[in-house]
């Protein structure tokens, strides 16, 4: 008997779901080791995390609040990775989207809410999109690798934001804190339920997921993205405008990350500061991979990742274990789902010697 690997043409849906589920669980199980190393009981820690993330209406609202930007950055990564455009710059695009929202929505345009909200969303989408279109064009024109450029741009953007909120955009009423002037009331997202923090950004995220799902399944662009992602040369040979498709993907991907920034400013903070995102852009990559690049899956994966963060914060307050545990779970989820991808590509089969 020997073990043989047979390539798979297509992995069934249930198997893909199973891989993501097992990957998330495996990541949670693996952190039992650092929890024990920190001198705590892992079962107690898991229980506290679950309670912290889902144990009350307040906890649930916090989790969905945290999931909102992750849905959008997850979609941003998912649509780009589908076309094999490596957008690792969602963090910077998020900040550019937030910046655009503040520039449009802090009062120099006097608009009623039904116009102000679409205006800041459009501005944020375009600003984020532009931040990804530039590296995509540099790739097409000069062959420059978009991975490193988008990664480096994240650092440039955050410094640019710091410069603006300590300079021209600084709120004179913020008692010296480096934060931007606030959005006007008309440009703020309403809360979904009074006294809970979750807001209309969640609906934006869900609608975006739905639109992206329809686009992937039902539109010419969706087909073109798939073709470009699977084989660029073949797509070009088949007459698909590869470069134009890539630029559209870049705009959509960066734009979605920009919307995440708009949502955080308009739904949570009300102003722009340099600590707006604790790495939502990077976690978005994990969301997309856990979701198998599926738009609907991204919503579920974002809720999972958000629950890990919110749960770990709460567990950390109760036990004193560092909440960097959440980042460990997120990193391990990514690596576990990557390994899971191996089983989607290959079928393991035992075979007897005669067969071979």
């Amino acid at each position, binding site marked *: 008997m020997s073990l043989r690997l047979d390539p798979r043409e297509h992995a069934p849906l249930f198997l893909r779901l199973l891989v993501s589920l097992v990957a998330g669980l495996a990541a949670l199980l693996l952190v039992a080791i650092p929890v024990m190393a920190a001198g705590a009981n892992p079962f107690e820690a898991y229980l506290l995390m679950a309670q912290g993330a889902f144990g009350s209406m307040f906890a649930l609202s916090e989790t969905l609040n945290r999931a909102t930007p992750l849905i959008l950055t997850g979609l941003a990564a998912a649509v780009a990775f589908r076309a094999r455009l490596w957008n690792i710059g969602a963090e910077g695009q998020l900040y550019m989207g937030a910046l655009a929202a503040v520039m449009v929505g802090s009062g120099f345009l006097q608009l009623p809410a039904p116009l102000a909200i679409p205006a800041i969303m459009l501005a944020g989408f375009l600003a984020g999109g532009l931040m990804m279109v530039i590296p995509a064009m*540099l790739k097409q024109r*000069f062959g420059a690798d978009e991975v490193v450029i988008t990664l480096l741009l994240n650092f*440039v953007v955050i410094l640019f934001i710091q*410069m603006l909120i*300590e300079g021209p955009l600084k709120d004179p009423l913020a008692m010296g804190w480096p934060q931007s002037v606030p959005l006007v009331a008309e440009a703020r997202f309403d809360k979904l339920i009074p006294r809970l923090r979750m807001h209309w950004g969640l609906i934006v995220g869900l609608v975006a997921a739905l639109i992206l799902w329809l686009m992937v399944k039902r539109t010419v662009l969706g087909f073109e993205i798939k073709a470009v992602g699977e084989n660029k040369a073949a797509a070009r040979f088949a007459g698909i405008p590869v470069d134009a498709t890539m630029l559209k993907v870049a705009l959509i991907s960066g734009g979605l990350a920009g919307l995440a920034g708009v949502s955080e400013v308009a739904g949570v903070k009300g102003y722009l500061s340099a600590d707006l995102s604790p790495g939502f852009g990077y976690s978005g*990559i994990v969301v997309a991979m856990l979701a198998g690049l599926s738009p609907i899956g991204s919503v579920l994966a974002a809720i999972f990742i958000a629950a890990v963060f919110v749960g770990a914060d709460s567990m950390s307050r109760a036990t004193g274990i*560092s909440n960097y545990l959440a*980042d460990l779970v*997120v990193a391990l989820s990514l690596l576990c789902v990557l390994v899971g991808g191996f089983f989607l590509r290959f079928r393991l089969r035992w075979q007897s010697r005669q067969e071979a």
Partner: protein
Amino acid sequence: MDVLLDIFASANFWAAAIRIATPLIFGVLGALICERAGVLNLGIEGIFVAGAMAGWLAVYLGAGLWGGVLIAALAGALFGLLHAFLTVILGLSQHVSGIGITLLATSASYFTYRTTLPDVSSPPRIAPFQPIAVPGLSDLPFIGPALFQQTLLTWLALVLVAIVAFVLYRTPLGLAIRAVGDNPASVEAQGLSVRGLRIGAVVIGSALMALGGAFLTMSAFDAFFFGMVNGRGWICIALVVFASWQPGKALLGALLFGAFDAFQIRLQAEIGQVVPGQVFLMMPYLLSILALVLVARKADYPRALLQPWTKGQRH
């Protein structure tokens, strides 16, 4: 103009340039070895953090300085082994695995730091590597202070450039490593193990990256800060392309970069009142992007970079 001349004529400026270049030399060499063998290692940013934390913590807990360096290298090698397992053995996406390694190494380092030192408000310090004075040479005008303000880790980095160049171009092992990133089929035809060579290269390369991190906490500074690596790993990935995957040019690129960075810090002191500080801080990243864009067309990527290899594979 006088300002510029003053800056370039000062030995302290060149000493700072070499100091800033040192972690990049380690990082670029590490990335270069991995990529020459056909494996992109985006784990570099996290491996820098792991090296910085592990080396520092070992010394803080009582190890000697060189013990700390060894621990840092081991931590890097360990994450390299994981990256090699995922990308070389399982043939999974080098991009995604690398990002995963960066996230894992960073969060594991932060978690370990917080767990080991739960109650510190300001980062505790260690006694770092000290500059070594060479009697006679240190007293040379200009060159003396520029070169001999450096610690042994900087000298290690410079020696490693020579060693890596020698091994890559003058030994059968180097030939095999270069071939495995260009034309793995030819290596297999020689009866050598493609996977073995790649795993070895990624492990060694990752250990070197970790030394870049260790330099930060054990020589440039004397403590570990969150976010102290600050994109240095990504800059190394850009510098490798700029250096055409050659150790000599990698050294030159890192030194140019160090000189530029030291220059902008001094310029900031001169004209910082009129230009916001962030403009200067952006420069290293923008410079890396510019370098990447300028050389991209001519860049001679190792031909089998990003391509997994299965034994007996035919093209």
